[in-house]
């Protein structure tokens, strides 16, 4: 257990520099986005009102007040989020493959540690998860700051203040990242975690059997997917409308946990019996 | 300490011979402390187990002795030292004769030649060793 925590710490520190860069880009880009967009809006309002073509209430009627909702849908805002998501998806692969890369094959060291090898797998999964949660937390902290900047730039009459819940709920993609209830949170991130486990296992198939392993990995992924969605597939086909929604949810939780357990078992087997260091 | 080791002869035999030469030449004095097995192995770049074997052999032949946990020492027994010297001289002379006999040189000529060469080498090596010290 002790070595597991040390491994998590080690893996985390290895990615920390890139991670901090991602955080920096997100903060800077989003805050610049808020400033640029609110200034654009104010400039437009000034042009119209100073130019005498309309009064401020006419302007608000015609163009509507500004809120974070508009700003969130710009590249300033979604760009860094997309960058973070893509980086973390690459990281899920990179966290394994870099140990085999280069002259200094760190994987020798990892596999000769006096600890169960599955701890390496758990440590890497934990690190990915911590990184994801960290970015989510960052976004949740940034939103109030950005709301405050908006309030600071744009006068009260020209803006609509939204709570974080309103912001995260109103925008479809955000609703996936920021579930409103604990149950939803567990479902969304449980599925995410399961996906990471499955991908990790597929990577270990490749690392154990190489070319053939790619095939095994893909087959494993497809089987995991089929198993996980089995209740939904049954519902949609032979058992048409057989389950209540709550039953379906419970069944999918069971299949999801089965996929996770299967991935851990399979990975443990591969790490102990089949893995190759070169 | 530098010893040129032959690759086809047991290393421990070569180490024992090296010690005999040093004793015979008087480079080791009776009762003088000798390096530990580990030190010797490190100095000669040989395996510590081999050094151990050489010491065991030398102890059996009475060339060195060890009291309790103290470092090993060269024997104080004058008779043993004398025998070592004699043994080495005879071995060397035997080897010399074996290689010179096929040439069929008269003994007197040979002795003269040996005297001449020997003093020459003596002179040179003495000069060398003076430089070194």
């Amino acid at each position: 257990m002790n070595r597991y925590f040390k491994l998590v710490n080690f893996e985390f520190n290895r990615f920390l520099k890139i991670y901090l860069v991602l955080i920096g880009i997100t903060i800077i880009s989003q805050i610049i986005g808020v400033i640029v967009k609110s200034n654009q809006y104010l400039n437009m309002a000034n042009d119209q009102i100073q130019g005498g073509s309309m009064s401020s209430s006419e302007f608000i009627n015609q163009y509507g007040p500004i809120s974070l909702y508009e700003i969130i849908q710009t590249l300033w805002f979604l760009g860094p989020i997309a960058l973070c998501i893509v980086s973390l998806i690459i990281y899920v692969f990179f966290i394994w493959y870099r140990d085999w890369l280069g002259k200094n094959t760190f994987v020798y060291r990892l596999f000769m540690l006096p600890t169960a090898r599955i701890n390496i797998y758990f440590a890497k999964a934990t690190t990915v998860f911590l990184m994801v949660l960290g970015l989510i937390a960052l976004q949740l902290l940034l939103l109030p700051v950005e709301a405050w900047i908006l309030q600071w730039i744009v006068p009260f009459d020209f803006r609509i203040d939204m709570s974080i819940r309103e912001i995260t709920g109103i925008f479809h993609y955000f609703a996936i990242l920021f579930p409103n209830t604990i149950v939803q949170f567990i479902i969304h991130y449980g599925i995410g975690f399961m996906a990471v486990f499955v991908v990790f296992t597929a990577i270990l198939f490749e690392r154990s059997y190489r070319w053939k392993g790619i095939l095994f990995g893909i087959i494993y992924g497809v089987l995991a997917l089929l198993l996980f969605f089995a209740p939904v597939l049954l519902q949609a086909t032979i058992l048409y409308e057989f389950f209540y929604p709550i039953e379906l949810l419970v069944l999918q939780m069971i299949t999801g946990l089965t996929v996770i357990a299967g991935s851990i078992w399979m990975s443990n087997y591969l790490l102990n019996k089949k893995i190759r260091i070169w | 300490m530098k010893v040129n080791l032959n690759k086809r002869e047991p290393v421990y035999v070569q180490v024992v011979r090296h010690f005999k030469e040093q004793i015979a030449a008087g480079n080791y004095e009776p009762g003088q402390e000798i390096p530990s097995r580990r030190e010797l192995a490190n100095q000669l770049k040989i395996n510590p187990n081999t050094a151990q074997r050489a010491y065991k052999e030398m102890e059996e032949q009475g060339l060195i002795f060890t009291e309790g946990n103290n470092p090993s020492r060269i024997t104080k027994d004058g008779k043993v030292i004398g025998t070592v010297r004699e043994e080495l001289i005879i071995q060397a002379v035997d080897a010399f004769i074996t290689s010179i006999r096929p040439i069929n040189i008269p003994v007197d000529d040979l002795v003269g030649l040996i005297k001449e060469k020997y003093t020459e080498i003596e002179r040179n090596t003495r000069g060398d060793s003076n430089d070194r010290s």
Partner: protein
Amino acid sequence: MIEVKELTKKFGRKTVLNGVSFTAEKGQITCLIGINGVGKTTIMNAIMALTPINGGEILINGEKIHKHSYEKITFIPDAITMLPQMKISETMQFMADFYDCWNQKRADEILQFFKLREDNRLSELSKGNTAKVNLMLGLAMDVDFLLMDEPFSGIDIFSREQIADVFSSHLVEDRGVLITTHEINDIEHLIDKAVLLNNGIVSKEFNTEEIRENEGKSVVDMMREVYQG
């Protein structure tokens, strides 16, 4: 004792090891010699459970390798196993964090012996010095068995001399050492036992002093018989 029994290993359809058996004793330096091929490194990897085997059995002190074995036996591959951006001090910290058998006093001593500074980064070191750090990481573990893959290959002669010095020093103490090499010159007088591999099997396994004593042959003579005969 490390016991390798009837070890078989295939890469695809190619059989690289075809029933290899030998032992390496504690307190002895055993040298695995082969003039070409991947067999030697594969044996090392197999002993450390870093590659699956197709047949046979490997025992360390009578038992199969498990997670705690890595506190008793360690392997020094021919490339260093730490990250290039790490400082020497950080590599030692890593070892101290993960291994109970890590001996920092000995590590410091070895650094001094090799004249290495611990605030150097691995990426800044010469080949020879990298090899020395690699060796240090293994030697400073209080393990019973030390495996080294080609410790002399690809480095300058002075580093080679220094590394050879280690074998006859107290740094090895009475541990068991198993090393692979394809050239024996640097260490002929340092090893207790030679295991000659040829075509995936052990052709000869002998004690070097015995072979000199009984047959008047050098290790190279034995190699000539196996590889040229």
